[in-house]
């Protein structure tokens, strides 16, 4: 006999993501899912952002990596409340992990929570974590063809942050091409050019995040 289900396989994750989203609203947490390739500068970007945001709003981080505490240690050094998730081989975070991590976070009041996802342009696209915003970091050394090669994750992001722009002069990376590709994939997405190490573009990015939180 046949059982007709016709249900999304990702339904369980989507349901839990919806619960996460509701919890974030209740607890006044503004959650941002930060995705991007390994080495694109996500953690350095967060360090720079926390310098900008420090006095303006409470901050916290959930770090996602396959193994190790490297990123969590960097966050601890700058005094940001952090929980490190080790996925033990899984290539992306999912809503279950975020729900568990939030139980371990000790934050109160208005907080901007960054979820630094596992470095990955493929699988991270398919898993809603319950975030309010998804932003993707793309670094100059990775090349300007990534939106064409990995369109889904870019299409599903609210903002594209081009990182390491201090390296433009060593590269044939075309910012214009990336901006045009992003306009076609996600016409409503914001695009930023930053150097987290040197501070370029960081105040504008911080202002945008705060404005999104207020709206």
């Amino acid at each position: 006999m046949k059982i007709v289900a016709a249900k999304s396989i990702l339904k369980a994750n989507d349901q839990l993501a919806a619960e996460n989203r509701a919890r974030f609203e209740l607890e006044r947490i503004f959650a941002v899912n930060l995705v991007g390739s390994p080495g694109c500068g996500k953690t350095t970007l967060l360090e720079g952002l926390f310098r900008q945001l420090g006095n303006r709003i409470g901050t916290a981080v959930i770090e996602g990596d396959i193994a190790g505490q490297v990123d969590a240690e960097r966050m601890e050094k700058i005094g940001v409340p952090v929980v490190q998730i080790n996925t033990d081989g899984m290539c992306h975070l999912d809503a279950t992990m975020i729900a568990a991590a939030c139980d371990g976070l000790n934050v109160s009041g208005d907080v901007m929570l960054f979820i630094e996802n596992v470095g990955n342009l493929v699988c991270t696209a398919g898993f809603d974590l319950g975030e309010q915003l998804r932003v993707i970091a793309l670094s100059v050394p990775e090349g300007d063809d990534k939106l064409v090669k990995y369109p889904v994750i870019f299409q599903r992001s609210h903002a594209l942050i081009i990182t390491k722009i201090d390296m433009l002069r060593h590269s044939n990376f075309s910012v214009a091409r990336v901006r045009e590709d992003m306009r076609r994939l996600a016409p409503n997405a914001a695009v930023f050019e930053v150097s987290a190490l040197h501070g370029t573009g960081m105040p504008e990015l911080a202002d945008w995040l705060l404005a999104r939180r207020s709206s």
Partner: protein
Amino acid sequence: MSIVQALIEQVEAEVEQAAQHGRVSRLDLVIGRLSGVHVDSIRFAFELLAPGTIAGTAELHIVEPRATLTCLECQAQCEMDDLQVQCPMCGSGQITIQGGNEVLLQSIELEDADEDCCREEHPEGQ
């Protein structure tokens, strides 16, 4: 991997909810070509994870529907295998895309429990 884990749990839940018995012989999935889910990875993960579970006896059948692109400028309509950013006919970026994003467990086929099962349960009834 986690998609296949979710799939196996979903099969367990559906069979239990339907209060049916028997061997799961076939699973029909719908995985749209724009979903970002890779069918080869699903098959590979299924081979690793399904044995020993309720889905371990099942044949996996996967349909991969295309998405439909409609151009708002030249009115062309065509099917896509990949996410496009412009109309393949006129090059306009004013396009809408429908479908192709599904990641569904469409149906589960069960082979009815056979008589051998009953004999084992009631050996004195032979």
